[in-house]
């Protein structure tokens, strides 16, 4: 039974594309056949994050307009042969496709893949409407900042208005040190405000930036906490019950020492 999941947030820059790439790869690592669909027409990024930009010949708009067959536009990932990308067009805009066309496209993709992951553009306009049109459920990405949470709240409202009841939350860029000092909202605080189920929490990690810039999403690296956190999210998507990670374990030796000695920096 295949599923179409949209990754959305409302606000820009909270990590939708990074999350989409990592979830796509994570599911492929777990043996699923996955298609990542970049719905951000005109501002495509997913291909860059996956390091596949130079392979693009046809894109989503070409498929929708019938310039090519669907199979011709799919790009196979470098490492995972079960992972494919359908890139967005860069020289067009969101109006180039309609929600009905997206819905049809998702239905077609679901025949061949276990999971269709849609990277939604920021905002609540045409691009958002296109992205959610074919989705069975949604994953909402937010950071523990009031602006991102406000936008996530708006998005949840819009999803419910579109009769999409199955939506879960990823809280991204958590900094345990700041939460301890009371300078940042904790996961619990965020859930209190948004009142939806959590599917994962990702620590703020400079490794994510490094790996993203190299075109190799962090989930491949299971030695770091953020990579593990993404893989756990994938397992939860597949229905496994995985306990939440203690994001504190990544504190360095010196910080531990400082904590023991009661010195706060």
């Amino acid at each position: 039974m295949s599923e179409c999941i949209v990754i959305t947030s409302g606000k820009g820059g909270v990590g939708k594309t990074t999350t989409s790439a990592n979830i796509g790869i994570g599911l492929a690592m777990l043996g699923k056949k996955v298609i990542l669909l970049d719905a951000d027409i005109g501002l495509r990024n997913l291909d860059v994050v996956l390091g596949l930009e130079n392979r693009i010949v046809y894109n989503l708009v070409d498929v929708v307009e019938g310039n090519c067959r669907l199979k011709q536009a799919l790009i196979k990932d470098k490492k995972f042969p079960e992972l494919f990308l359908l890139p967005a067009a860069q020289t067009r805009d969101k109006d180039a496709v309609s929600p009905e066309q997206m819905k049809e496209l998702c239905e077609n993709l679901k025949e061949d893949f276990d999971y269709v992951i849609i990277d939604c553009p920021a905002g609540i306009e045409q691009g958002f409407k296109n992205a959610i049109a074919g989705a069975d459920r949604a994953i909402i990405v937010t950071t523990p900042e009031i602006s991102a949470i406000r936008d996530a709240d708006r998005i949840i409202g819009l999803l419910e208005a579109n009769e999409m009841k199955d939506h879960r939350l990823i809280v991204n860029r958590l900094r345990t040190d700041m939460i301890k000092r009371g300078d940042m909202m904790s996961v619990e605080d965020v859930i209190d405000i948004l009142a939806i189920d959590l599917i994962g929490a990702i620590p703020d990690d400079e490794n994510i930036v490094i790996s993203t810039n190299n075109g190799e999403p962090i989930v491949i690296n299971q030695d770091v906490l953020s990579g593990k956190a993404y893989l756990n999210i994938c397992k939860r998507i597949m229905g496994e019950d995985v306990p939440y990670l203690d994001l504190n374990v990544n504190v360095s030796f010196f910080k531990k020492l400082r904590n023991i000695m009661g010195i706060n920096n």
Partner: protein
Amino acid sequence: MDYMNELVLIKGNRYGLNFIMNQDADFEALLSAIKTKLTDGKKFFGNAKVSIGFEGRSLSETQQESVIQMIHELTDMEVFCVVDDNIPVVSSESLKAMATLTKETMPKQVFPEEVAVFHQGTLRSGQELNMDTGIVILGDINPGAKVTAKGNIVILGSLKGYAHAGCDGERQACVIALNMQPTQIRIGDVIARSPDKFEKSRTVAQIAFIEDERIVIDHIEGNTHKDFKILN
């Protein structure tokens, strides 16, 4: 490719005109296509003395005769010989005629007036430039930007995005850039993508062209321009 759909293409070369004909069309249709082209191009062809050649299919002598007659009727050109790839016509007369021809008038008459256009400014992600001619860009092509031209593409800056030269199928087109780091280069119907790990940026002018069905990139050296074919 688009140009395959046309029944007849008339291309100029050093000596005269080449008629590239659709293999499958019947002769009457070809003749009427040639008629239209000649009528449209009467001014452009001028009153040159030309040799003509036929490509794409073989014509009988009577058929050739009717094409030549049409040229004489519709334009001011004078056909002095027919060049057949299989049977080279090398009478001493025609050789002499060719020699004087190449010296004097021909190139100016055959080459189209507009060979390339200039574009000033950097093309950024999502911007696209399409030209029916060659193109010279005074600026960079950033990642995500795209240049498409029927002729050659010369970039006086960095090529980091997409470039497609000879986009109607012309495999002799080339792409030149001062700093060659393309995401993808296409020439004619051949596609090449960049390596996944790029070396440090090179600031040597380079040229991309087709060799043995593949796109190769080479430094521009002193005599590169000799092989350079001007396309429009």
